[in-house]
């Protein structure tokens, strides 16, 4: 079951960590990151990456809509 990934544009501080680490999932537009794909295959590494976002702006949900990241 695929996951959904989004970047919260209001929270994003534009560090570029996500786009610089996983360009297959994230891109950098102007001053903020965006997810370049909405649906992704389950990927534990991506949860780790979401945890390194200083703004906790990477939102990942599983197929049922349950929030996987940011983790508390």
């Amino acid at each position, binding site marked *: 079951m695929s996951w959904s990934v989004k970047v919260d544009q209001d929270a994003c501080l534009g560090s570029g960590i996500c786009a610089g680490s996983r360009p297959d999932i994230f891109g950098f537009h102007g001053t903020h990151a965006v997810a370049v794909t909405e649906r992704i295959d389950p990927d534990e590494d991506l949860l780790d990456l979401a945890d390194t976002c*200083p703004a906790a702006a990477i939102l990942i949900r599983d197929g049922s809509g349950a929030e996987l990241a940011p983790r508390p």
Partner: protein
Amino acid sequence: MTAADERVHDYPFNRPEGLDLAPAYRAARTSPGMIRVQLPFGEPAWLATRYEDARFVLGDRRFSRAEAAEHDEPRVQYHRGSGGILAMDPPDHTRLRVLVASAFTVRRVERLRPRVREIAESLIDDMRAVGTTGDLVESFALPLPVRVICELLGVPARDQHLFREWSDGLLSTASLTAEEFSRNDQEISAYMAGLVAQRRAEPADDLMSALIAARADNVDRLTERELVELCVGVLVAGHETTATQIPNFVHVLLSQPDRFAELRADPGLIPGAVEELMRFVPLGATSAFARYATEDVQVGEVLVREGEAVLAAIGSANHDETRFPDADQLRFDRGGSGHLGFGHGAHHCLGAALARVELQEALRALLALPGLHEAGHPEWKTQMLVRGPRKMPVAWEAQ
């Protein structure tokens, strides 16, 4: 349009004394493409001086830090350190970074703000209790981030006299011999390994204990050596730059009395002022941590070939007029975002949120010191990767 500059320039451009941005950067920004530079050690490199080019190189995965280990990396010092996570690429880099990153998110760090404020105010009280003059570095700028990072990580602040010397050694551009550098490296690692052993026996509510627990959960995820290296990295990177930027910010503000008065009249401007000062102050004595192209990559007008090194000149990028109009003017109304003062991309400063809180609270506390002014010229560091006062005599009024 003039022809591309094909000379190889001697680098670094900036003088260590003071915070001026060398005029050679403006010349490089306004000539097409990137320029070639030769540092005192290592191979020549491209230098990205424009905002777009610098940000692109820092943020694009095709530029690798790990590859630097395979090359004679351009550098100002003879010795080469292990580099820690700054010498790694994702996904290895992410695996380690995530272990410490959760302690440095905006949300977690905001919870530390009251403690940071308390430390800043107590240091100001101590300064006022002693008299009306002092060294801003020794009495305020250094102890503030040292105490904060020591408490966060779990290192006794009373050991400052020990780790400050090792920390300086790690960030020094002085040509230490290989033996001197490696002895320094071994001493701080041994010190940290000792603390890790203590914490393992007696865990506490700090980042070191959290890392020890993470290793206990999954020994493949974090080796003992990586654990110790991460703690050393957090301790060193966690105080030196902030301790340097506090006097730099004060130096800039005191030289622009209108801006200083503006902040004093409205402390609500402090967060914007910190972002603007991060942009405005060219902290680096040199550009460092070259990125290596893992394939041919077009950077602006230059095709960087696979295996070539590119250095991002952050101070120059932050003064690029095409990105920041009136870039040489200090203005608190720029909206803050977009400067490269904390870097960009996978290696964006891990402690950026903490540094912001510390710098904001440092300015808040110092603005309340009546009649603060410089009492003589600062004594500048000369052999460090970052520029700033080693000593900064200041004075204030008793009331």
